[in-house]
Structure formats: structure tokens, C-alpha cells
């Protein structure tokens, strides 16, 4: 029965060749440090799923943001878990991305023919920091407000365009409702879209070229 269904589907979807290309490929024998990339991907999926769940209750306005986060934490069933996973997942994401990158540098994995994989990786690192910075404001508590005030003020230091950057980030001279709406938009639309595109290219390259092998002393 199962065979029949899979045959029927394969005839129409061609899933078997996809499966073979992605999963049934040979890879060099590697150590545990090579799991950092997939762990980062897992953290990203975790962030996406819990993030989507959070948007069901979260309201991105200064009047209600704080109350809605409180509501999620105390009233929504398993809300504390969703928010906890998202909160600590963010830290895990940053940590894993950096460790993954350090591993790549250590083994020289960014070298020919994986340069493009590295470039997309650096892009992903920046996006992950962007997520961390934009998501920090959303709970609209004291820490969120003041850390973002200071964080955006730091951007103002940039020569020539500093003031413009500050205004663009805050949506005005002060940190207001506009800033919150802006950060929310960036956090849930702009950054995820970019993230998905870059992860797509990154994974495509990893599968196409294959993971690097652990270099020997002579290499």
C-alpha cells in the first residue's frame, strides 16, 4: 500500500530523485563540529515557528505591546514556552552562527570551491544580528526601550549620514510608535524574507558542492 502510494506520487512529483540528491549522497567522514550548521538551521526553524505563533497575540503599538507580551506570558496556554523558546532561541541562534563561522574559518572551508557559500554565510550572520537588534525592542519594556534608544544613537555617530540613519531607524528624531511599527515590520517581514532567500542559496550550495572534508596536516 505504502509502496503504491509512493510510486504514484513519485510518478507525478519526482520526489525520489530529490530525496536521493539531498539525502542519499556520500559525504566525507567528519566530526561533531560539522553539526553546528544544521543546529543553526534548526534554531532558525524554531525562531520562525515560535515567531509566527507570537504574532497571533502580539500587538505592535506602544499602548498595547507590553500588555500583549504580558498576556502571552501569563494567559495564553503554553505562551510562556513559546516566548521562552523564541527568547532563548535568539541567543542560541547568534551563538551557533558565530561558532559555525569559527569552525569554517578553522578548517579553511571557505576556500575554493565554496567562496560563494561563505559570502552568503556572512550575509546570514548580519541578518541574524539584525533580527537580534530589531526583536529586542518589541516587548516594549524598559530594557527594550532604553537599549534601543542607545543602540540607535550609536548609529548616529557615523560620519555624514549618521543623522539620516538615525532618522530612518527611528522614523523621526525620537523613539516613538513609528519606531516600534518599523522594527516590527523589519523583524517579521523584511529580515525573514531575506533570511529565507539566503538560506536557500546557502543550502543549495552546500548540497551541490558537498560539505568540506577535515583537512589533513599536508593540506
Amino acid at each position, binding site marked *: 500500500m505504502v509502496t503504491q502510494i509512493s510510486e504514484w506520487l513519485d510518478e507525478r512529483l519526482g520526489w525520489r530523485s530529490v530525496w536521493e540528491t539531498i*539525502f*542519499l549522497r*556520500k*559525504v*566525507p*567522514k567528519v566530526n*561533531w563540529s560539522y*553539526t*553546528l550548521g*544544521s*543546529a543553526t538551521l*534548526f534554531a532558525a526553524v524554531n525562531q520562525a515557528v515560535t515567531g509566527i505563533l507570537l504574532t497571533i497575540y502580539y500587538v505592535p503599538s506602544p499602548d498595547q505591546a*507590553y500588555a500583549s*507580551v*504580558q498576556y502571552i*506570558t501569563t494567559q495564553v496556554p503554553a505562551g*510562556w514556552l513559546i*516566548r*521562552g*523558546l523564541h*527568547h*532563548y532561541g535568539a*541567543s*542560541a541562534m547568534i551563538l551557533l552562527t558565530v561558532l559555525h563561522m*569559527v569552525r569554517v*574559518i*578553522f*578548517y*579553511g572551508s*571557505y*576556500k*575554493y570551491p565554496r*567562496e560563494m557559500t*561563505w*559570502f552568503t554565510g556572512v550575509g546570514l550572520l548580519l541578518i541574524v*544580528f539584525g533580527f*537580534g*537588534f530589531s526583536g*529586542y525592542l518589541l516587548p*516594549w*519594556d*524598559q*530594557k*527594550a*526601550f*532604553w*537599549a534601543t534608544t*542607545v*543602540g540607535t544613537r*550609536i548609529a548616529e*555617530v*557615523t*560620519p555624514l549620514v549618521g543623522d539620516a540613519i538615525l532618522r530612518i531607524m527611528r522614523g523621526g528624531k525620537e*523613539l516613538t510608535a513609528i519606531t516600534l511599527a518599523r522594527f516590527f515590520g523589519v523583524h517579521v517581514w523584511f529580515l525573514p524574507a531575506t533570511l529565507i532567500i539566503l538560506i536557500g542559496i546557502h543550502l543549495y550550495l552546500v548540497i551541490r558542492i558537498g560539505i568540506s*572534508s577535515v*583537512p*589533513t*596536516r*599536508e*593540506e
Partner: protein
Amino acid sequence: MDEQKKREYYEKYQKDKEKGIFFFPDLLFKDAVVSLLLFVALILLAYFVGAPLEEQANPADTTYTPRPEWYFIFLFQLLKYFPGSMEVIGVIAIPTIAILVLAALPLLDRGPKRHFLNRKLWVGITALLMVGVTGLTIVAFLEAPPPFDAFRGDETAALYAENCAGCHGPAISTSSGTNLHTLIAEGEHEGMPAWSADLTSDQIDALAGFILSPLGSRLFADNCGTCHQADQLVASNPLELKQALEEGDGYSGHEGIAVPVWSDTMAPEERTSLVNFLIAPDGQRLFSVNCAPCHGQSVGFAGTESDLRSLISLGGLHLAMPPWQESMSDGEIDLLAKYVVAPATVPEALPEYQQLCSSCHGDRVPKSDDFDQAREIIAGGGSHQTMPIWGNILTPQQLEALVAYTLSAANGTPAAIGQALYSQYCSACHGDFGEGGANPALSGDIIAPISTAEYLKTRDNLTLRSVISQGQPNFGMSPFGSTSGGPLDEDEIDAIVTFIRTWEDNPPVELPPEIQTTAMPLSGPEIYTSLCAQCHGEAGEGGIGPSLLDASLQQTSDREIFESISIGHPITSMIAWGEILTSDQITQIVRHIRNITSSEQSPPAGEVSFSTDVLMIMEAKCNMCHGLLGGWDGTTYRSVMDSGDNAPVVIPGDPEGSLLGLKILGAQTKGTVMPPGGKMDADDIQIILDWITAGALDN
């Protein structure tokens, strides 16, 4: 890499793959294990720690010390090493270069070698960078105020960590002479808030003690913390503290409690630290806690610093007061006693006080709580209060701070300076005690009292300052701040605010007075006297504002004068009176100004007369002591010229050679300035000097 090397790489990689494993299930299994562990870790964190949520954002609360999330904190720390204009290097240049190098890594490190030992440069740079970032993160967390429970019951240290450490770091060094209590209570410059809004006065005392003697705070927590709370003991009576420290369970408060004799268990330096913590060596505070009960807000003292130090440390009977019952009626003494208990309630006693008491006591009233006691002291005179031997009680640091403050305050405390400025600029409209009254500028309007507890509690210093500085043109109050064209600079405004604040403890006015509102006077001279004369002088001679007798006014048309009054001058403290007065009233004023400026011919200053001018000053300022206590006598022309141990004190025509001139100027080589409470008004001094210059005639 050339084609040859590329081919070699592929061949090697192909071999690795053949020797290798399948992605599914071998490698994916490892991935799954790690991801699962990660997921479990996240759930445990969410369950046992939980995502933090602080108070709701409050944009008005600038006291909050912002700290970024841990992964940005290294950047935050980096910023600290690039202060001021170098900031751009720390936050923009370094991170940008780091990111660019990172992105371009495959283009920079292009060799075929992959093993880390063959790429020491790049692996080394990476390692250094990681160590740097980790190090900065660790330093940032170490420098951060530690959590409260880390203080083992040292509540003051916790208070400090919570409120001060965010900006000031683990310790603050202050220059001697800083009035810490006031500075903390009132805040300073941008960023430092007025803590009196959040902390009690006792807590501020404790903080000042902690800042000046952190070791003392530690000792307090270890030795006294079990029974006492720091903020209940700070700024208490040093005599009591000294006893408690020296007498062990023999001290009355420690009776029956197993309290060690602290002088046995603590080294002398430790005891000094402890006392310095409990009573911070903060001159202003020491004075207000220990000296103000007898001496009022400050002591008039014109001697040297070492004189003052020995006077304070020796204590004892340092001044004798005449027995006033010999020269005053009971009613007068009653009035004075009442005044001493509560100056605000008997303003009519002020002239008497100034005449009799202020030459020794200064302008500041010696404080007394009990009418009968005050009366007895005034009537009996003599050495009415024995000063404690402070040298045995205070620590050297405290003594030093107290001497420095007393000397500086002898020139007038901010409150005393503020009082003088208040009576010069404010009391015309707000009353001597801030009781308010009919608004001279607005018909039917009443100026509410500004000295009620309610008024003062609901306005912070910033508000008071800006009201004084910018005025309230809608109500006819001109701006007084020099930034708005007024006569007062910032320090002077601060002094007035300090004076106004002294009402808060003991408001002279509780309820708005019932005031008959008078109809706005319609005649030009009356309006001029109540409004314009405040700044331009009764006869238009000028004052705060410019003189109206200037010849240029003759060339100005009535129309232009009218507009000047009606529209005002935006950069000066001349407000737009057109919003308050009717055009009819302004026309009247213009006519009045025309009258006084055309007819005005100021009378020549008359010659100084001994009998009418000089003798009056001597009666008021000298004779209450010199008449009664012997020596030089200032009651008649003859005695002024001939009496005294150092006669003659007046050399006609030579004020700088006359002892009298030197003494009133404070330029004498022996003895103290006269009167001993501080110099007389500059005008009075000038009259006497002029009289001597003119030949010291008996006219």
C-alpha cells in the same frame, strides 16, 4: 589557485567522499542529536528561567541604565574605550573593517592550504578576534553592577549599585568641599537626576557616607547590620554614636544586649571609617545636622581657617551675650523669642532682630523649638550654650569638611544669598514670605502663595528655575534669567530656589490669604509705580531695566514708546504689556513717562552728616555692644573721636588709616571685622567712609 591545484583538490575530495558516509542516516543522525539537545536546552531555559520582562517602557524615566543584550555588549564595552570624538572609531570604523575583512576572507586567504597549522596568520587573527570579543563581553559583565544579593546585607552598597553604579562605576572620587548630600538630592548637569524624588533624605545620607567611606559601610554591615539599618542611623548625633561605640553594653541603648566594646574589637582606623560612613564628612550636611540647631543656617565668622578649626575643636564657651532684660521690655523680649522659634509668624520682629542680634548672629536666625527656653536665653544672656568639644568627637575628615564648609558659608549660604535676592526681586509681588497678594499687573487677579507645602511639593527645582528664568508673561511676570534678558544669572536663580525650598519644611503660609482685589489703577502715575518702576525706577532713573532719562527718548515718538510697551522686547525681560494692559492704560503710562522725563532733574547728593547719617548707623550696628560692653563708644561725636583702647579710631580725611574704616571694611590687622556677624551693607560702609574722607566733621 591554478587549474592544477583545483584538479588535485577535487581528486582528494572525491577520495574522501568514497571513504566517507551517507548523509542519511549517518550524518543526519548526529545533526538530529545536536538539534534535539538544543531544543531540550531551550525548553529547560524557558521553564526554569523564563523570558524576562521588565517594567513597561517609560520614555520619561531617564534614570534607567540601558544595557544591550549580551551579544551586543562587547560593542558597548568597546565604546567605553573610545570616548568623545573617538567614538566613531570604536563603533563604526572597527566593526565595519571587521565585517569587510570577514566577508572578503576567501579573497584574502587564497592559498591552497587548508589545515590550520598551514594558515597560522588567518587562524591567528580569528583567534585573537574571538578572544577580544569574549574578553570584552566578560569585562562588561564584571564591570556591571553586581546583583543585590552579592552584598551580604550591605544595603547601602546595594542602594549604590542600584542607583549610582550604572553611570559612576564601582566608586566615585569627590574633591573635598563637595556638598555631596545636596548634590545627590538635587542632581546636577544633564543625566544626573534629582534623587530626592526617589530616595529619602536618610538614604541619601547613607549614599554620601558610602561614597566617602565604602569601608565604613562594609564594617557597618558586618558589625551593626544585624540590629540596625543604615538609613536609620546615618546623620544621627555624633555624641551618641561616639558613646555607643566606646561604651559597649554600658551604653544606655545597648543595655542588656551582648554588644562588644567596639573599641576592643575594631582598630581605631576602622572606627574612624565607620563613623565617617555614618556621618559623612560632607561639610554642609555636618553643619546642618550638628551646628544648625544652635547656629541657624550659618555662622558669621571672619577669622582665619586655623582660628575656626581650633574654635570648633576646642568647643566650650566661646561667646557671651548681653543680658537683654537690662535694656529691653518684656514685650520686646517676647517678640524676639517668638521670632527665634518661628521667624515667619512674626515678621514685625525682623527689624528688631536685625538691630540687636544680627551683628553677632548674622542674618540667620539661631533656631529654637521652645519659646520659654528661647525667652530665658535672650533675657539672661551670657554664655547661653556650651559648644561640645567637637575635636574629641569628630573624625579628622569630618572636622576638615566642617571647617571648610563653615568658612565658605560665612560668606552666605545659598539660602541666605537667595533670601537677599528674593527680597530684592521677588517680594514686591510675592510678599516677604511668598504669601502672594493682588497682582499689580492684572486687575482682579491674585498671585497665589508660593510658600505653601502644596505648591512646593508639586514643583521640582527645574520648574521653579524655569519660571524664574523665563517668567510668566501671561500673568505679568517678567523673565528674570540672564538668558532671557533679565538681571539674574543661573547661580543667583539657584540661590533663590534654594531659599524658596527652605519654606518647604516649615511653610509660612498654608492657605491662600483673603485678599481684597483692588481695581486696576487707571492713572498713569499709579500704573507706572506699581509696574514699570520695578525695573525702570520710581523716577525713570533705571535699575534692572534701562534708564528712561536717556536723551534718545526725547527723539522717540509717543507712538514708538506705546509700541515698545505694548509689544515688549523679545530678547530682554520687557514683556508684551499689551496682552495685560488696555491701550488706554498704556497711553496713560506714555504720558506719565513724558512728564517725568521732561521735568526730571535729579537732586544732588547731599553731604554726609554725622548727626543724621553716621550716628544712625552706629546706633543700629555698633552701640548695642560698644555701649554696654565698654571700650570704644559710638554714642556721641566726642566719644566716637576720642574713646576706646586704640583711640583715636578716626583720623579725619584718611579712611584707610582710621581703625574704624579698617574694621568695617574687614581690612584690620588685629581683632575681627566689625560688626562681628559680618560686614554692614555696602551703602552704610560708604557713608561712614565718605564722612571720614570729608574730614569727620561734627555736622
